[in-house]
């Protein structure tokens, strides 16, 4: 279905890696807690391992509040991390701004959720794109070269003819066109990695696929590594090669998109897939037994004091005593079809996993 299936897997070199990535946000202390010793923190992301490869789309799926946007911001170095490693081409990188940050974001660019907020309303498309090109030193020497580069950028995101869009203000564009402009701006740096934080969830349903197809096309032509963050697991299946599921700050399952969505292993992934709207399920309308696999009524836990052990155990119908005390590691699962790996962080798979 995608070009990646025909190429040997070895061409997908690792671009960006995260190992043990952790982010805790300190909680403001009230008067009452001023004299106690404990310092509370929101455990937004804990011990996350993630690999982005060239020419591959990796989806990160989770509920709101699961920490998925924090992951994008950590990878973009917009937040300092509490601990862990971010490696670009194998080298650990920590930047806090300035020249080093620019050099980093030349390679790792971010696309934000809301194209209505991420473009400056008082500037034209030309200004936004010129600025991106100039900052990253790709504007060319003459104004003719710059003009040509601008045209190339707009052509890449399928805004044709480019002349019609260059001098428009953001309010003159539709949501889909705006998102395309912000993708063009990200491409202005000629990056290797795109971090797309819910790039289509603010767009109208009918144009979402257009933008996803554009991103896939860019991935193939420019050999980009894309991190696609979403709450919609069906779109992850459609768009991503690899899918990771995040729950309450931890990854719970990962693997080939088709495998994860068709043979979900972790109880949370199963719950997520069961809950997604499914028009083919017409006969089961309104059956209260529709949403199984959930004991605690759909409430994600507080991240200030996350549950011990597996963070899903208070909601899990398969929970065992072990689940509430010990944190499950990743267990490799047998892959039924295709290459790639499939793993779940769940004690249910302890025995089945390769010794």
């Amino acid at each position: 279905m995608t070009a990646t299936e025909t190429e040997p897997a070895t061409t997908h070199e690792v671009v960006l890696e995260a190992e043990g990535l952790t982010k805790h946000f300190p909680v403001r202390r009230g008067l009452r807690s001023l004299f106690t010793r404990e310092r509370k923190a929101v455990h937004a992301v804990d011990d996350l391992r993630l690999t982005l490869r060239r020419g591959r789309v990796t989806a990160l799926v989770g509920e709101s509040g699961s920490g998925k946007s924090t992951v994008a911001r950590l990878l973009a170095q917009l937040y300092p991390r509490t601990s862990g490693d971010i490696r670009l081409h194998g080298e650990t990188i920590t930047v806090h701004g300035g020249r080093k940050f620019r050099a980093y974001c030349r390679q790792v660019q971010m696309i934000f959720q809301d194209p209505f907020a991420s473009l400056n309303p008082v500037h034209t498309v030309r200004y936004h794109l010129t600025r991106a090109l100039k900052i990253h030193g790709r504007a060319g020497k003459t104004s003719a070269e710059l003009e040509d580069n601008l045209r190339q950028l707009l052509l890449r995101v399928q805004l044709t003819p480019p002349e019609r869009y260059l001098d428009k203000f953001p309010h003159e564009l539709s949501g889909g066109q705006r998102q395309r402009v912000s993708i063009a701006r990200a491409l202005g740096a000629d990056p290797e990695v795109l971090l797309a934080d819910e790039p289509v969830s603010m767009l109208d349903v009918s144009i979402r696929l257009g933008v996803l197809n554009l991103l896939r096309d860019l991935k193939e032509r420019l050999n980009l590594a894309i991190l696609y963050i979403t709450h919609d697991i069906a779109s992850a299946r459609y768009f991503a090669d690899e899918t990771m599921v995040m729950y309450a700050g931890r990854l719970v399952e990962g693997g080939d998109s088709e495998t994860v969505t068709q043979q979900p292993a972790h109880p949370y992934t199963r719950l997520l897939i069961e809950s997604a709207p499914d028009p083919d399920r017409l006969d089961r309308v309104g059956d209260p037994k529709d949403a199984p696999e959930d004991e605690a009524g759909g409430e994600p836990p507080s991240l200030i004091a996350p549950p011990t052990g597996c963070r899903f155990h208070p909601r899990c119908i398969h929970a065992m005593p072990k689940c509430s005390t010990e944190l499950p590691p990743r267990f490799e699962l047998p892959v039924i079809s295709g290459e790639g790996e499939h793993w779940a962080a769940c004690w249910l798979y302890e025995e089945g996993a390769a010794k």
Partner: protein
Amino acid sequence: MTGLKSPVLEIKDFNVDYGLGDQSVQAVRDVTLTLHRGEVLGLAGESGSGKSTLAYGITRLLPPPGVISGGSVIYHPPGEDPYDVMALSNSELRKFRWAETSIVFQGAMNSLNPVHKVSTQMLDVIKAHEPQLSAEARLARAHEMLKLVGISADRMDAYPHQLSGGMRQRVMIGMALVLEPQVVIMDEPTTALDVVMQRQILAQLVELRERLDFSVLFITHDLSLLVEFSDRIAIMYGGRIVEEAKSADLYKDSLHPYSEGLLKSFPALRGPRKELAGIPGSPPDLRGMPSGCAFHPRCPHAFDRCSTEIPVLGIPEARNDPNRQVACWLPGRVPVG
């Protein structure tokens, strides 16, 4: 889900403009729609298609510069004579709202007053509409309602910020149902929630509907959700209804190219992986509506007639089914007669 029953709300030739004079834009055009007793009617469309405007219009909650420029909304109270909501005086309207028709708003989680307890807000509703009830009876009613929507009685005295998003949404639904209205309008009630919570709340709603027998007008942009949860679906585009059919019919055999495109815009979670395209172009701007069929610039099947004449909503020739209507000039979809 069974055969169609008597109507409870009949919307006829409804028009809404924003602004007056030549500055005005037409947000809702000639909408005729009937909500039957005990059914869930889904209203789907993209942003700017006029679906929320329609909901606010029929309850006369439309804030200025919105103007209802024509049409009638006939409400059929059980066992009484029907009347036109548009002709009600302010005091009659106040009685009509919430007791007969209630709304769960889009950002329902934020429509609770943050400085009052849930119980205060709930009791307030009952007090305003049924002043003859004693304080104990009111409290009992509020308790009972919250229990129905799955909130335990000890949460009655919580402030909204102490509840999670899903619980706040349930409180809102409970509040909308507390006077046992005949019609509940839900404007994107679950958009801000996670899929897991969404399914729970909707399953609960379906269960409550069976018990209390109210009708629901369910407005959303998520067509795949509607197909699963509603009995009938009306699709709006550019302020008009372009297709109306039973959910299953619409899903399996949509007649309007827009409905078809919309259905193909949702990647499937099961079955074979398909290449999908969405719909090319972008939704129309109300200030510059295309001539003829509003969808023709994006339509893959458009021909000459589409850009000049506005198609009328009617029972399509090819399917002689009184339960479905479509507004399209394509062969076989032109209305009979």
